[in-house]
């Protein structure tokens, strides 16, 4: 009995010592071996890594049914049941690729992204600030990108033959009403928001997502910073003003408050101006930004901005003696938004918010006071569900409330309009693999005032090749006319545009190349007779097209310590709109456009030198002394700007910038007398620049415990 027991024990022990040798090969679905894969028995320490040929082998003391796990970065893990019997076991494992957003293809048609980490970006957030000539204006930097035209007497964004109202601007997904300051005609304006607020931006020159609507040409989506890094105070002293920003950072929340004041009067007393200012532009603004973390992945942000502007200018009237017409503008503007984002369980994502903007203009045209009040409310709720790494579905609901009123207080006249718009959008994206993605979207809208329902489909696809990637985008876009026209005719419907865009994008080793061609068709554009200030017979008989191509090349490698980009855009646009009777080339769509931006760092001087040059082939205008309309063209536009940033200490920056250093007399068009003179000719005067050059000196000081912190972002 004892003997049997002993032998049984020996047998058991022996069996216990009989190891299983597990070996095999890990490959992908194409049969290419995967090195570095982790192969192991679930719940044990037994396992190994595959070698360069995908081969692995290890031994295990485990017995019976076990689960063999195979994992590798970039692939779906596999689990398979194996039976360990103490002999050799050979396993062949095939892993499927997963979609990896870090290296997967992205849709670049129409899109130009400014961000820090993604690879499809053309700009860094800092570029918006360090591009000389931009003068700290967000749109100033975008005007050096392909697809845009510099319209020096306006200052807003003009994209591919579209006028400025065809671009809509968003902050954290919510619309910004009246994003540009109010200005007199032919006096350029700026965006109201400091570039320091944003961590990145997404600028689309067409073919954009179903998430955005009511823009015929372009959208600019700005994303605000999440959490600031540290407590700090930022002082800025400019030759034209100054400001202070204070930042407080807690564990879960942060507060930034700032106040700025700018007055051009002292500067204009020293430097000769072409414009006849009675009161130089003066501006104050204050803003507060709050950030609150919400759970592990969520965020709530609130932002409030309020500002006031004043200016009085005399504008000469062609054919008349004297100072001309006196235009006084007092603008009061407030914008606030609250937004959130949160990730739920099972790959659900939620975001949304509420925004409100208020813009009030008191304008005095000679002795005639005019009051204008514009308010926009935007509410938005978006739900995204990732059904798998390949397939994601986005659904959103939006509400826009828009009111506008105009009054002539002296005559006791007032008129109002109010519109409520409801939108729904749905967008699906599907990754066939890491190299091919397709996105399809549908945006539906309804306007109560226009009594119109519209449905606009969008589609895009991108394919990544060995070198670079190709993408294609197409879609329909709708936009209701500007409020100042809708107030005259409440029945005005949407104008429409169709976009077709083909894009090639290549980025490698600090070199980026982008080529794009586009075709855009317009219909139902607003038409009227008479002057723009008093339109009559308003209708929507206009139509037209814009087509062309553009190139962008950026290089940080070829020339040492130098970063440059160069762009060229060709736009062929003709459209009938406004008070034109035929299809004309719009004044804001020069045919040939180019820019060159260079930044060079000189370590010894602790300085960055910047220069930017923009150029176009000239603006069209109507010369009433000749038959036809928009038959004439100004000479070319050219502007070379230089800047110098000096960092004597890590927390102090001295910045000097000058636009149009060559002093070129750029002309944006001509104004003509409304009646001919005695000899039968219409007298003209050029629409030119406010001054030959604009120069600014700025000193930025950052106060914080971290002495290395600075306001490099302010340059």
């Amino acid at each position: 009995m004892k003997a049997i027991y002993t032998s049984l024990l020996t047998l058991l022990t022996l069996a216990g010592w009989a190891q299983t040798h597990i070996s095999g090969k890990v490959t992908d679905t194409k049969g290419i071996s995967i090195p570095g894969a982790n192969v192991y028995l679930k719940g044990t320490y037994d396992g190994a890594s595959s070698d360069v040929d995908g081969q692995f082998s290890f031994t295990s003391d485990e017995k019976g049914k076990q689960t063999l796990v195979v994992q590798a970065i970039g692939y779906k893990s596999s689990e398979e049941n194996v039976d360990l019997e103490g002999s050799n076991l050979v396993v062949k494992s095939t892993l499927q690729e997963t979609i990896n957003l870090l290296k997967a293809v992205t849709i670049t048609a129409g899109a130009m992204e400014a961000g820090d980490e993604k690879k499809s970006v053309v700009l860094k957030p800092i570029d918006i600030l360090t591009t000389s000539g931009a003068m700290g204006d967000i749109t100033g930097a975008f005007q050096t990108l392909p697809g845009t035209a510099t319209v020096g007497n306006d200052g807003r964004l003009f994209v591919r033959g579209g006028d400025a109202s065809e671009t809509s601007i968003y902050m954290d997904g919510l619309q910004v009403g009246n994003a540009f300051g109010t200005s007199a005609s032919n006096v350029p304006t700026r965006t109201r928001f400091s570039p320091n607020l944003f961590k990145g931006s997404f600028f689309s020159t067409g073919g954009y997502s179903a998430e955005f609507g009511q823009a015929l040409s372009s959208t600019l989506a700005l994303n605000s910073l999440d959490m600031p890094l540290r407590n700090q105070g930022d002082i800025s002293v400019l030759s034209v003003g100054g400001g202070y920003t204070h930042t407080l950072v807690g564990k879960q929340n942060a507060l930034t408050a700032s106040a700025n004041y700018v007055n051009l009067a002292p500067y204009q007393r020293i430097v000769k101006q072409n414009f006849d200012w009675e009161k130089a532009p003066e501006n104050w603004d204050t803003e507060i930004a709050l950030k609150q973390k919400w759970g592990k992945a969520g965020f709530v942000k609130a932002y409030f901005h309020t500002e006031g502007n004043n200016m009085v200018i005399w504008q000469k009237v062609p054919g008349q003696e004297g100072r001309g017409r006196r235009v006084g503008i007092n603008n009061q503007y407030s914008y606030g938004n609250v937004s959130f984002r949160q990730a739920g369980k099972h790959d659900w994502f939620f975001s949304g918010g509420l925004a409100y903007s208020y813009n009030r203009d008191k304008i005095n045209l000679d002795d005639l006071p005019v009051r204008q009040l514009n308010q926009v409310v935007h509410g938005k709720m978006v739900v995204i569900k990732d059904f798998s790494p390949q397939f994601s579905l986005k659904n959103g609901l939006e509400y826009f409330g828009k009111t506008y009123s105009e009054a002539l207080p002296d005559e006791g006249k007032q008129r109002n309009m109010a519109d409520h718009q409801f939108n729904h959008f749905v967008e699906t994206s599907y990754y066939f693999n890491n190299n091919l993605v397709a996105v399809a979207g549908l945006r539906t809208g309804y306007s109560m005032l226009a009594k119109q329902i519209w449905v606009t489909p969008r589609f895009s696809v991108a394919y990544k090749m060995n070198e670079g990637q190709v993408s294609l985008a197409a879609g329909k876009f709708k936009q209701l006319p500007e409020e100042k026209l809708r107030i005259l005719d409440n029945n005005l419907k949407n104008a429409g545009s169709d976009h077709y865009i083909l894009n090639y994008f290549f980025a490698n080793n600090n070199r980026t190349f982008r080529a794009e061609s586009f075709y855009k068709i317009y219909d139902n554009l607003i038409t009227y007779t008479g002057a723009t200030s008093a339109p009559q017979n308003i209708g929507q008989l206009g139509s037209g097209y814009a087509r062309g191509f553009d190139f962008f090349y950026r290089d940080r490698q070829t020339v040492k310590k130098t970063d440059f980009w160069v762009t060229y855009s060709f736009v062929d646009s003709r459209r009938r709109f406004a008070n034109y009777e035929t299809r004309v080339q719009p004044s804001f769509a020069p045919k040939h456009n180019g820019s060159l931006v260079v930044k060079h760092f000189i370590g010894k001087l602790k300085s960055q030198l910047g220069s930017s040059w923009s150029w176009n082939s000239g603006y069209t205008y109507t010369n009433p002394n000749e038959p036809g309309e928009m038959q004439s063209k100004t000479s070319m536009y050219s502007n070379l700007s230089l800047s110098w940033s000096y960092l004597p200490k890590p927390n102090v920056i001295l910045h000097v910038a000058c636009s149009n250093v060559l002093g070129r007399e750029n002309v944006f068009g001509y104004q003509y007398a409304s009646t001919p003179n005695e000899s039968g000719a219409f007298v003209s005067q050029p629409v030119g620049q406010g001054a030959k050059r604009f120069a600014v000196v700025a000193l930025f000081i950052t106060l914080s415990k971290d002495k290395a912190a600075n306001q490099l972002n302010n340059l």
Partner: protein
Amino acid sequence: MKKLFFLIVVFAFTFTTSFAQDSAYQKAMKKEIAKVISTDSLGSLQQSANAFARIAAINPKEWQPLYYGALAFTFQGFSPALNLDKKDEVLAKADELLKSAEAVSPGNSEIVALQGFVLMAKLSADAANRGQSLSGTIMATYGKALAIDGKNPRALAMLAQMELGMAQFFGNGPEKACGLAKQSQAIFDAQDEAVLIANMQPTWGKPMARSVNSKCK
């Protein structure tokens, strides 16, 4: 009395069982920790990363397997043999592991310091594009690690390295970097490495302090 006896028994029991259970874990960990800090080879770093993943899978309540797994991926992220895409891929993996580690052991200075090291690897992968945006975040991350434990020699050494880079960029003296590096070196020299190794506590980072120190005086 009975109660006390019971307590002692329970304590002794849990102690021995946990000790017995831990020994396989400790053995596996110590073997891999020794490997990971002594190799530069991508292959063996990946092997270590895999080994730590296996250990982490059966010891989900320990932060060290996740931490050292992340370290193995971060070292790969510094390898000149990998292209940018590949570097970002392994560093994303390191980030993911550190997030899990943080959930297991919140407010851990070592985990935060390693997060800073991952960011440093991201920066050096594409310095021209990422330098401006990441350097501030990196300094702040080391600051966070030092706020939890002001004597974390790795956080001090890595911060010293960042400060040195900053000083060189601005053409300033290395005093601040040197102060930090000296502090770090002193802590490294004073610690009993054998005890740390026995407890699976991090010991790496000495050469970094030394390399900054070599630029001082």
